[in-house]
């Protein structure tokens, strides 16, 4: 089987996902188009050699509907022969898109492909696409459907993370993101978003708050207490009777932010890279996805990590850098606890608590982030993973070449 190499990765800065966010005036199509243009232009890419573009998008309705990947390919004026497909694995969609691109390269279906994602959450709100899980009693009742925030609180309760613990994690995430920006650590990947005239409308992640403190977070009320009290604590106790009382610790300050953004990662075979005069930055060693218990929902990273490491014959000690999407503080803390991972190796430049989580785009964004960091700090391997809705996990292991 062919090897899949990463040649480049770009992302937009993340704009606050509200009507007063900087990217609210930019269409989802434009965000996706701009990252495809950037990856083409900075690599002098002959797009006729790009077989497929796979974009993650979690709310594929309205302007994000009907295969936004193909529409963005057309809008970016790629070769007509470049296909496009939109995928949805909830929060891991962007990483799944990269894994699919890599798999296409490995099997020889494609020689060069792009994985990435787009989510304009200020324009197409989360949940716009409905779905059966929460509302069809046939499945909701037997799987104990619970909103993610309550699930994250359950993880904190079950694994012993207090409000102070999760808040401390969030303070550190903000500090790291602010420092990374200050030191220009994201400058290789971030491409500023241009407005309709071509002027830069946003060049930095909009939600970073480096001055966040324990005191400022302490003022925030638990965001999921009410939902828990209304019904979902009772629901989740059906599956976890060991829990006497759910400790609701998560709030807007220690959960991932709602933002707009897009990402793209160029993945291809060694031969095509050489033919196009591209220099590989990393190799995709392997990847995996897994299903996990759906009501606690967000413990998938633990199981998919074990799965992918076993598949690759690797040990946790073989991983230099860990990148786990900061959906909720407790999710990251649980993986660190389960694998005894030092915080110094986990999300070293902060994560979605500080910078936000544009659902379909995040996976490819953090893959680029950790690849940059491997180069900056001269490390060899990294594992990227995300917790996923409905109880799943997706992970990818990369190494420098």
């Amino acid at each position, binding site marked *: 089987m062919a090897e899949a190499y990463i040649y480049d990765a770009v992302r937009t800065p993340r704009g606050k996902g509200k009507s007063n966010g900087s990217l609210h005036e930019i269409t989802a199509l434009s965000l996706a188009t701009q990252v495809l243009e950037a990856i083409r232009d900075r690599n002098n890419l002959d797009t006729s050699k790009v077989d497929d573009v796979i974009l993650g998008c979690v709310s594929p309705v309205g302007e994000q509907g009907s295969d936004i990947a193909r529409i963005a390919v057309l809008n970016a004026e790629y070769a007509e022969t470049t296909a496009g497909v939109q995928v949805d694995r909830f929060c891991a969609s962007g990483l799944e898109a990269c894994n699919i691109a890599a798999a296409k390269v490995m099997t020889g279906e494609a020689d060069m492909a792009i994985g990435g994602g787009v989510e304009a959450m200020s324009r197409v709100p989360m*949940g716009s696409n*409905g779905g059966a899980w*929460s*509302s*069809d*009693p*046939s499945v*909701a*009742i*037997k799987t*104990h*459907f*619970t909103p993610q925030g309550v699930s994250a609180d359950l993880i904190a309760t079950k694994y012993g993370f207090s409000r102070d613990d999760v808040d401390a994690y969030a303070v550190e995430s903000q500090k790291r993101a602010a420092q990374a920006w200050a030191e220009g650590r994201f400058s290789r990947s971030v491409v500023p978003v241009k407005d309709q005239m071509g002027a830069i409308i946003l060049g930095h992640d909009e939600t970073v708050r480096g001055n966040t403190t324990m005191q400022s977070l302490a003022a925030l009320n638990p965001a999921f207490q009410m939902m828990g009290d*209304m*019904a*979902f604590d*009772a*629901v989740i*106790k*059906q*599956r*976890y*009777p*060991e*829990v*006497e*009382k759910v400790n609701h610790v998560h709030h807007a300050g220690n959960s991932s932010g709602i933002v707009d953004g897009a990402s793209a990662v160029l993945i291809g075979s060694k031969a095509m890279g050489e033919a196009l005069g591209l220099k590989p930055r990393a190799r995709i060693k392997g990847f995996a996805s897994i299903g996990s218990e759906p009501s606690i929902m967000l413990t998938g990273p633990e199981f998919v990590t074990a799965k992918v490491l076993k598949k690759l014959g690797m040990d946790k000690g073989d991983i230099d850098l860990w990148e786990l999407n900061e959906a909720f503080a407790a999710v990251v803390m649980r993986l660190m606890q389960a694998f005894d991972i030092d915080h110094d190796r986990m999300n070293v430049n902060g994560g979605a608590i500080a910078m936000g989580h544009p659902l379909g785009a995040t996976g490819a964004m953090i893959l680029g982030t950790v690849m940059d960091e491997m180069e900056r700090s001269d490390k060899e391997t990294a594992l990227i993973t995300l917790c996923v809705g409905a109880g799943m996990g997706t992970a990818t292991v990369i190494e420098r070449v």
Partner: protein
Amino acid sequence: MNLETFNYSVDADGVAHVVFDVPGRSMNTLTAKVMAELPQIVAAIRDDANVKGAVITSGKASGFCAGADLGEMGSRDTSGMSGDERLKAEFERGFSLNRTLRELETCGKPVAVAINGLALGGGLEVCLAAHYRIAASDNPRLQLGLPEAKVGLLPGGGGTQRLPRLIGVMAAAPMLLQGQSQTAEKAKAMGIIHDTAPTAELVEKAKAWVLANPNAKAPWDEPKFRVPGGAPHTPAGAQLFSMAPAMLTKETNNNYPAQENILKCVYEGLQMPFDAAIRIESRYFLKTAATPQSKGMIRTLFLSMQALGKGASRPVGPAPFEVKKAAVLGAGLMGAGIAYEQARAGIETVLVDVSQESAEKGKAYSQRIVDKDVSRGKLTREKADAILARITPTTDYSAIAGADIVVEAVYEDPDLKARVTRMAEPHLREGGVFGSNTSTLPITGLSAASDKPENYIGIHFFSPVERMGLVEIIVGDKTSQETLAKAIDYVIAIRKTPIVVNDFRGFYTSRCFGTYTQEGMEMLAEGIAPAIIENVGRQAGMPMGPLEVSDSVGLDTALKIGKQMARANGTEYTNDPKGALLDWVVEAQGRAGRKAGKGFYDYGSDGKPTRLWQGLGDKIEVTVNECPPEMKKELTHRLLVRQAIEVSRCFEEGVITDARDADVGSILAWGFAPWTGGCCSYMDLFWGGLRGFVAEADRLADAHGERFRPGQMLRDMAASGETFYSRFGPDMKAAAAA
């Protein structure tokens, strides 16, 4: 048309009058005959060119229609048909009411219904299929509702579709899922009916509406119809439908297929045109009716409750016994409650205690209840005063003179009970009954104090008396059948449901109920986390976790009983890990339960449990901290099978002799998971026959101890394919009496 259950006539204005009047019944129900005649009526309205429209009403003063005939249900025989063929034949039968009502609704002529009294279940569904509904404003007993869910069924005549389309899902949910019913006034405000009028004017107004609205159509047959409040996957409805399954889980612990299927009908049906929606409803109706939960709940919570409430366990010979005057000895919590229930039922009540102050205090209990009812508008001041006037608090036993019955409710002390028996008995009228309210003391022993032990009987009330609907009647060795009949008549007179048991230690309810808390203690002693025990108990459908129940009973009481029982068996209770633990909690830690404000739980100032007591961890090593589904299933079986096995032993020993008494008693007395239909139904219906239950009990006995081991009687029944209802059910009883 040759009709038996309806009168059909067409008046001079071309309005058909359909009068629902099932012969030989005090109340209309949807009998098989009604179901056969209804399509003929619909055809006549539709096809007769002289008919401009129709008015449907009832010929019964008792009301419009009480719904399906539950006695007739479940008697269908579909054996012999193969899978798909059988399902389709079932559907044809199950869909017939829906088809007929839909034909009525779309007959092209206006149909109005004049609702003169209660319309429940299928009765209300008939009304909802009419185009116009007007109900009596002057009938306080008029109730409109869909109570199917309460007996494990779903409204299968379009109720799950028409009601939410009429008033929105939010307003319809409590009616569909909890069986909440509405008065005429409330129903009008909610939009369930169009208007109200005095009974005498109902038909006339309905007819006027029919003549004025020749082009009547159901709202959902209008092209631009939208479900009020939003359908699933609409912006308005999305959030509501995302909360609904969770709310249902919180309410029901997912133990009731009827409620789940009702919600499925609403979710799936509201996304469909009406004709498809009612097909979906009928499929779920049939699926629900085939569940053991539905069979058990209809039988116990409807048929058996009704039968026992009418005296099914009463010996037939003795003449009816009318209680005009009754005395209660002991004005404590139980005595005060019994006095209130008697007075409320119109019985002259003498409430005796050792001091006038205590007796007055007992009467004050009734005062508090009626005052609350008056303030809530549930009772008029006159009626409240009349109730209170019937209670005479006194210290004077001679005030009992001429009483038809005396119920003693003094402390559980045999000597004290003997003393008050001797003081009260001489004042009873000739042939009067002496009842002892005791939960554990053997009746035969107590009756030794009586000069007339044949008139002495156990009448065991539950606390709080005014809220608990069951009374356990204990027949002593010397109690006569006549006394039993009288006691049952008394219990029915005060509107409680009597069950009859024989005189063994712990009788029936106390003995079986105790096994639930004992199994909880076993689990605790094994190192299972208390939260797991409590959550699994509640989620199994019990009203409280076993540890919370223990707290309510009193841990000191539990310790005392445990020690007594161990001594009787020649062992030392504290050598048992459960005994040692309980001894430590009560004696060393001083935690006697809820009344002490501390037990297995900590309690707030309102007497409600706040958290499980963390200190338990100092004594027991919790080794089981997780409860995945397989373990939850195992613990659930332990808690429920343990109780059921005890019930089977009660049958084997002769403590109880009728499966209806056992089932109704298990639910009403100690809250045995109502979704099962009671302990006997749990054994009969949920394991593919008793053979399956015996196998599971044996497995549990092998894994956890002999307390689960089935007795010989149960094994024999399983081997011969019997059930509790075939051996101890009403048919056997009737056969034995004949």
